């Protein structure tokens, strides 16, 4: 990562329209989270456009050492988001891929590089957009008893997109949500895409330690802004018979906002 990745980002005015890049994982395994993201955005008076030809950001191939395949898939997305509307991504690692790695993936392709760079500059992870561009005003709900939540932020969401900061700030808006802190919060859950199947024992050890730490907080709900981590964590929690389940943060937010409205 270069220093520019972590430098403070300047945010524009609230736009009238945005694109949603739903990600391949949400598309197939958690469409509810994508729909919730749309509802959260529409509630702020934003028109959401969902290009039907979108598929995947190319990350699985990119991180596994298959740049040609990653480029082929990413290239198929490049023409779907013309103009200047922001591209909202409800998953930190996919947002990181588009924002930081697409320009590198197309560095030698002068036809596609401008498109990749344009999208990269307009890519926002959902919580970042809700917090820093839309400045959402969410009211505390009238619940008597605060609910306890534990937040897991994916590594790329954390290190490339600062998602832990944004998600925490949004959770704090409700007033009736107590956010528990797990041991080794910043540590990886062991997903890492193909890592989870190429090194299953190490991945399982990491996931199991993470599940222990999450359970030990006593929180009733686990939320995360990263779809890949949720697949890993929920699969692990379910296999061990835990009562705890992770929910995509968009779904969690939409349910809360709906309640409060």
């Amino acid at each position, binding site marked *: 990562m270069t220093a520019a990745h972590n430098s403070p980002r300047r945010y524009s005015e609230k736009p009238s329209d945005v694109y949603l890049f739903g990600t391949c994982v949400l598309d197939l395994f958690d*469409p509810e989270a994508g729909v919730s993201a749309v509802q959260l955005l529409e509630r702020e008076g934003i028109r959401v456009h969902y290009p039907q030809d979108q598929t995947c950001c190319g990350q699985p191939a990119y991180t596994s050492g298959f740049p040609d395949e990653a480029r082929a*898939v990413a290239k198929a997305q490049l023409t779907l988001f013309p103009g200047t509307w922001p591209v909202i991504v409800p998953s930190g690692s996919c947002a990181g891929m588009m924002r930081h790695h697409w320009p590198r993936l197309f560095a030698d392709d002068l036809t596609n590089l401008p498109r990749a760079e344009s999208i990269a500059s307009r890519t926002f992870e959902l919580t970042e957009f809700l917090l820093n561009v839309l400045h959402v005003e969410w009211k505390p709900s009238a619940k008597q008893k605060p609910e306890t939540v534990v937040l897991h932020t994916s590594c790329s969401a954390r290190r*490339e997109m600062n998602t832990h900061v944004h998600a925490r700030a949004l959770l704090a808006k409700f007033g009736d949500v107590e956010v528990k802190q797990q041991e080794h919060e910043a540590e990886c859950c062991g997903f890492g895409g193909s*890592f989870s199947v190429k090194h299953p024992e190490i991945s399982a050890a990491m996931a199991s330690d993470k599940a222990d730490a999450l359970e030990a907080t006593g929180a009733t709900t686990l939320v995360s802004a990263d779809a890949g981590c949720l697949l890993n964590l929920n699969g692990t929690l379910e296999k061990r018979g835990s009562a705890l389940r992770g929910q995509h943060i968009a779904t969690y937010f939409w349910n809360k906002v709906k309640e409060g409205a």
Partner: protein
Amino acid sequence: MNAPITFHENARRVVANPVLRASFRGAMDFLMAKRAAQFPDLDAFEALRTQGEAIRQYSLARLPDLLEQLEANLTRNGIQVHWAETPKEACQIIIDITRKAGGDLVVKGKSMVSEEVELNHALEAAGIGALESDMGEYIVQLAGEKPSHIIMPAIHKTKEEIARLFAEKVPGVAYTDSVDELIQIGRRVLREKFRDTKVGLSGVNVAIAETGTLCLVENEGNGRMCTTVPEVHIAITGIEKVVEKLEHLPPLMALLTRSATGQAITTYFNWISSPRREGELDGPKEVHLVLLDNGRSQMYTDERLRATLQCIRCGACMNHCPVYTRIGGHAYGTTYPGPIGKMVSPHMLGLDATKDLVTASSLCGACGEVCPVKIPIPDILMQLRRQSQGTAGGIQLPAAGSGRRPLQSMAFKLWAGLYARPLLYRIFGFFATRLRGLTPKWQGAWTNSRAPLRPAAQTLHERMRLSTTRD
């Protein structure tokens, strides 16, 4: 070609051992906390490591010139310089110097490069003994093992294990698990050897080209003994350790000791500028420097991998690595474990022998975040994955493509064929969701420790198409 490392088996064994797991976790937590306490101000840390990165990049950009300048100034100072391309050459140089000095034992300060060239084996084969004088290395040598960490070689051992080892291996020592007593035992054994041994060996942390000075950081004083008491001092290091000017040293030192052991400053700092001069009462009569390549030129050649050479060997990347924390250093089967090991070992042992190492990362980025010289470790690992798959383009390393598995390549081709075709992709999504009831319960390695993945009832595409308000 080197034999492939049995990484999977090694890792599996450690992961299944709760005692080792708890011990590694405890040790890494301790080291992470110590380091964090040294960098309370993240902006200051960022500024310092940006400076460290700039110094290392500047040095590497001028590496060939700096090495010539270093050699000229060391020679002027009376230090003899030897160049070794391979571990074998390095060992032979050291054997020859030792024989010429009439030595039958080399007393060693801590040196990872000496581990890298497997010096102790080579010396033994030549009928020369080697004695490690760093306490951690001494323990590891007594146990007949290799270091499991580049800064704390015996971090995998408990106090009790060390106590048993001393009682068993050191003549005339009764069992004690008092750390102070154990250290005194080691100290007594080593003091005798320093006095009687003709050849001392050490590593080098930084070599300064303009002054012809070798800098050595250590905490136990054994480094100073090795470099001053024996008649001959041999230093060994990699060709990347050179900087141009004296003023380049302080930022690197400030980063090194804080990142490594959480110390603001090292206990001993040794400047080695010449052998004993006329009229001086102590110091070695001869000082030699062995400069080792062993794959470093290869790291240098490819710009996309060159940042590997910025490394100052602090070990922070392994202390913060969730994989290292789970499996410890020995599982890697390489001299350098952890993230730094994954970056350098392919150049030393070949991509074929290390293909399981370059994939053994979730690319979480914890290493890159703490690296004191800002090596983009995840990016370099991804580049090595491309080299391993033979897809890197540009310069191809030897054995590029040796990590390629037909099935995996085929899978990604199919994946791209599907995901680059929107219509086909939507049809796939439609059927995957409709046939979700047929999802297999066994999904390869995924379901070893996880419930099977099951698609939702409808894709997001479908739900967005069916809702009326959106295009």
